[in-house]
């Protein structure tokens, strides 16, 4: 079975995000970028499926600027077999919206014919949490979101989902889209010898036109603001006062 893993190049999770002066978005010039952590978990899961003999080939795909090549190389160094870059933007500040990404991925799926698509549940930059679900709708495939456990056997996948207040286990028919959550696995570091070998692995470059998809934005950003600073706390002089404040002012008890 072939597994397709979409990976997104996002601002590194360690970087302190700064809003551009005009409020049109986040400043990405000369900022460290990395693979979306949830996508890294998806790549790791695909590699584990291959190590178990369930997956036979892992194809990673990234949609965005040319520099997303580095993200694909990281996935190849971890253990993916081949990569597809769909160059859909020239400016690092251009974010391709989930619907366009899902349409492009649907095109890749039709071309590649994977038995499973493993995606991160969301990207940590815009937190849309939409691409996997949209892809499932476009293809008419089963979907299982927020996976914290995954077992594939025959033409079905058993997925444990992290839902509000607990876990839910479902079985879906293959082919399927599974979006992965934080606790599914702990991704490996690509070994140094594999990083050196990754450059020799195939990386195909495509454009949205190859799939007949218009990536023009449907949404417009009204404004972007930094989160409000935390207000100073207050000191209380007695437990009675604390309880009174929790009851009357905070309304939590």
């Amino acid at each position, binding site marked *: 079975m072939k597994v397709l893993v979409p990976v997104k190049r996002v601002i590194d999770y360690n970087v302190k995000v700064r809003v551009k002066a005009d409020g049109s978005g986040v400043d990405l010039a000369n900022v460290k970028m990395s693979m979306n952590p949830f996508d890294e978990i998806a790549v790791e899961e695909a590699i584990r499926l291959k190590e178990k003999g369930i997956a036979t080939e892992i194809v990673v795909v990234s949609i965005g600027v040319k520099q997303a090549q*580095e993200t694909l*190389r*990281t996935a190849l*160094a971890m253990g993916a077999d081949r990569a597809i870059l769909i160059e859909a933007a020239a400016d690092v500040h251009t974010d391709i919206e989930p619907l366009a990404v899902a349409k492009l991925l649907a095109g890749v799926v039709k071309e590649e014919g994977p038995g499973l698509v493993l995606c991160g549940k969301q990207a940590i930059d815009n937190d849309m949490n939409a691409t996997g679900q949209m892809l499932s709708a476009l293809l008419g495939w089963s979907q299982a979101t927020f996976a914290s456990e995954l077992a594939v056997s025959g033409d079905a996948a058993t997925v444990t989902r992290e839902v509000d207040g607990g876990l839910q286990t479902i079985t879906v028919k293959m082919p399927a889209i599974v979006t992965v959550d934080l606790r599914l696995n702990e991704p*490996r*570091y*690509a*070994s*140094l*010898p*594999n*990083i*050196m070998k*990754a*450059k020799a692995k195939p990386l195909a470059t495509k454009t949205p036109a190859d799939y007949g998809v218009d990536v023009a934005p449907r949404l417009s950003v009204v404004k972007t603001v930094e989160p409000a600073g935390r207000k100073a706390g207050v000191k209380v002089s007695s437990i009675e006062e604390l309880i009174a404040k929790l009851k009357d002012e905070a309304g939590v008890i």
Partner: protein
Amino acid sequence: MIRDAEILGGLVETVRRFVRERLVPAEALVEETNAIPPAIIDEMRALGLFGLSIPEAYGGLGLTMEEEVMVALELGYTSAAFRSVIGTNNGIGSQGIIVDGTEAQKAHWLPRMASGEVIGSFALTEPDVGSDAGSVRTTARREGDHYILNGTKRYITNAPVADVFTLMARTGEAGPGGVTAFLVAADSPGLSLGPPDRKMGQRGTKTCDVILRECRVPADAVIGGVEGQGFKTAMKVLNRGRLHIAAVCVGQAQRLCDEAVGFARSRVQFGKPIAEHQLVQAMLADCATETYAGLCMVTDAARRFDAGERIVQQAASCKLFCSEMAGRVADRALQVHGGAGYMQDYPVEHFYRDVRLFRLYEGTSQIQQIIIAREMCAQR
């Protein structure tokens, strides 16, 4: 020389992430237990860190000196004990075989050193032989197709975990010309280990004596197969290692800068962070400037090495400056911390003790000065 900037970028980034996500958080544990968790050593093995400088033909990464320096800068950012685990396989424990070994010796040891399956170690120092490295007293006498070794080797890094030693012993006349380099397997009959050394710092590193009593090794254990070349081999090994150590010192200095800045920005005295007090700023500025000077030196020397230049003097200058510089930076970084810096709750306390070793091993600062002056005055 950087062969492929994109590949090296990925490599350095991975090492940086590994250091910051896995090693830095384990520093306190290593300090407390005086041991590196085996799980971390396994991760280092899986990552391929044992084979950085071993040629690709023998399963290593075959990094150029400049590339190796960039990786060493990252590894130097955490407790030196972690670097020490892979230090001998990438340096003194493997270089003797790489530079002077026979094809059979390379094929036998290097692939397993690159994978980390085998740990190599370097045994030159003795109870009475330190800076005067040519006066080795350990003896090796030929008996048929074997050599019989007798003597004691001191402060041998990674000896407690080593599988093979690059060991210097006397086969001929007095002086450097009578020294031969042997590859002595740790399970050779007659080889035993002393108790672990109790050191000032670099807790978690393993050192001890290696004792040879009528220790039998096969005749083909002579590196390169020729007697009397041992001193030259040892000097070649130490020459390359100097740039690696210098880069580690710069990494340590960089970490100390970051620790000092982090503390200075959060510690408030006289109503403002101490980072806003000029006398503290002076200490921070001196730390950063000297660290940068060390970085420039070691990068330049590594490029020259890769270009095939003779860099004996530059390598000694790098080792001298960077090790002494790391000591000064550690001293200032501790001073910035005030009384807190003297407490084991802050990393700066053990870094201060750790960096002291860099001025001593693989050639003291004074030996580096002698090498530099000798090179300066030599007629060429």
